[in-house]
């Protein structure tokens, strides 16, 4: 009998037995595209609005209402300032899913007379894609632009796709899986020249990279608190007031709050927190993005210098500083997550999804199912440290090596079998 790779105990160094370097608290959170922890300064800003200053911002006749309104208006200014807008152009919502819905459905209904064509891209968030799909049922025509291998849309493609019935282009600023930054300024310029409204889901970009609605010719932009160290359930929509003035049909009718575009009593603590989060981001973005990119590159080098056949998904050049999305060939993503269970990250593997479909974003880049299956998204954030990065790098490397010993695909590849040629039984 000949055996190989059969050590008596192939797992002599898994999580439980590994010494944890000092200064690290487990589990480590490195999934900052899913959500970010709140910054303590944000919490501090919010706290008074739960108890002492509990008023309704729409109450015009007493100091309780005035205090709440003051907080709301300060937040509006802070958000506007971060993106180069004016405060009257900020509408508060419950988060980016609502903002995306309001932007797309609101524009579609308002400009229906003008045309019925909408352009988006295949790598958008579901909040955009499913909203567009919904509109298709009501007579709208939607073009889902493909992306190139690096994850970017092709501007010539976009140019060709705009026709005289196009009313809206909706393309995200930064992708939530691969962190790829779309050429927003170029898209904005093109839309402006063609008289088409441009919406961007800027959730992942705002507070991380500069976004300026005027320099970039953005007409409508979605924002959410919980991706920039603010609270969940608090979001905003930027809606341009002049050159051109954009109008929306509201999704929610009622008391006429938010200039009629979004009725409902405002979530004052959440709004105060969102504003504070934007103010902090404005102040700290230059140093912070430099630090994030440094940590990200450190993790990348730590992994890539020690493992062969690992592939970065999406452009490295046009990318959020805190994002790293890597495929580890021959290792399935869920099993890798299990091996590094003291680290919170996510995977594009089919095995991790309820539908057993690998990530549609990775597939759109032309990544094969096998590599989509092997992908891990690292989302580095404000509170990660160099020591954590080094720990994560070590854990990933050792787990990948262990799982490759367990992988029939790795063995076959080493034997020179062309995996694409294999016919699977079963």
């Amino acid at each position, binding site marked *: 009998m000949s055996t190989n790779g*059969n050590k008596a105990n192939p797992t002599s160094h898994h999580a439980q037995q590994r010494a944890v370097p000092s200064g690290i608290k487990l589990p480590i959170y490195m999934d900052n595209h899913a959500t970010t922890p709140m910054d303590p300064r944000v919490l501090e800003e919010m706290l008074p609005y739960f108890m002492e200053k509990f008023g309704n911002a729409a109450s015009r006749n007493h100091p309780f209402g005035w205090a709440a309104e003051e907080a709301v208006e300060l937040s509006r200014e802070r958000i506007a300032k971060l993106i180069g807008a004016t405060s009257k152009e900020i509408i508060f919502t419950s988060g980016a899913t609502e903002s995306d819905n309001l932007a797309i459905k609101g524009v579609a209904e308002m400009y229906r007379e003008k045309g019925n064509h909408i352009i988006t891209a295949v790598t958008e968030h579901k909040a955009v894609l499913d909203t567009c799909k919904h509109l298709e049922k009501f007579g709208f025509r939607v073009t889902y632009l493909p992306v190139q291998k690096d994850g970017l849309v092709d501007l010539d493609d976009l140019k060709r796709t705009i026709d005289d019935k196009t009313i809206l282009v909706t393309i995200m600023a930064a992708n939530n899986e691969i962190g790829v930054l779309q050429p927003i300024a170029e898209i904005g310029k093109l839309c402006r020249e063609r008289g088409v409204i441009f919406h961007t889901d800027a959730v992942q970009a705002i507070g991380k990279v500069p976004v300026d609605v005027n320099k970039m010719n953005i007409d409508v932009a979605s924002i959410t608190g919980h991706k920039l160290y603010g609270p969940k359930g608090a979001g905003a929509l930027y809606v341009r007031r002049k050159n051109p003035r954009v109008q929306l049909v509201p999704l929610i009718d009622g008391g006429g709050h938010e200039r009629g575009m979004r009725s409902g009593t405002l979530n004052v603590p959440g709004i105060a927190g969102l504003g504070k989060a934007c103010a902090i981001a404005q102040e700290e973005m230059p140093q912070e993005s430099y630090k994030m990119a440094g940590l990200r590159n450190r993790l990348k080098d730590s992994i890539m210098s020690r493992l062969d056949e690992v592939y970065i998904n999406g452009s490295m050049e046009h990318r959020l500083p805190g994002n790293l999305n890597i495929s580890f060939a021959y290792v399935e993503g*869920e099993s890798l997550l299990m091996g590094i269970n003291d680290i919170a990250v996510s995977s594009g593997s089919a095995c991790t999804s309820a539908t057993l479909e690998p990530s549609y974003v990775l597939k759109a880049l032309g990544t094969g199912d096998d590599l989509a299956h092997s992908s891990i998204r690292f989302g580095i954030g404000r509170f990660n440290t160099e020591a954590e990065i080094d720990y994560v790098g070590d854990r990933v490397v050792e787990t990948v090596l262990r799982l490759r010993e367990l992988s*029939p695909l790795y063995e076959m590849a080493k034997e020179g079998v062309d995996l694409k040629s294999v016919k699977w039984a079963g």
Partner: protein
Amino acid sequence: MSYSDKVIDHYNNPRNVGSMDKKDADVGTGLVGAPECGDVMKLQIKVNPQTNIIEDAKFKTFGCGSAIASSSLATEWVKGKTVDQALEIKNTEIVKELALPPVKIHCSVLAEDAIRAAIGDWKKKQEATKPAAVQAAQ
């Protein structure tokens, strides 16, 4: 996915990881893929041609924690069984033993398929090289 302790144990300490010589006449190799999610399992058995008892088993799996645990468990279960007894192992027993959630049932099916494929391969070899032994087994 939050898994049962048994799945986690098999994942952390997989039993019988490895490979045997595919060309050995007494070795049966099953290589199967799951159409649902693209995972791949290789399960090998070494059978005593006199007794038809599976004396050794090895596996390698590219797949989720449930797939790794299912195949690890399958190698434990087939060892010491005759080929015919091993063919009676059902994926539902694996599901029960490992307390797999509904979305992970296909991973256990893959393990059952791998056992069948390995035995099928061994039988084919027996027919080709030692027809007498196969007849004795049937």
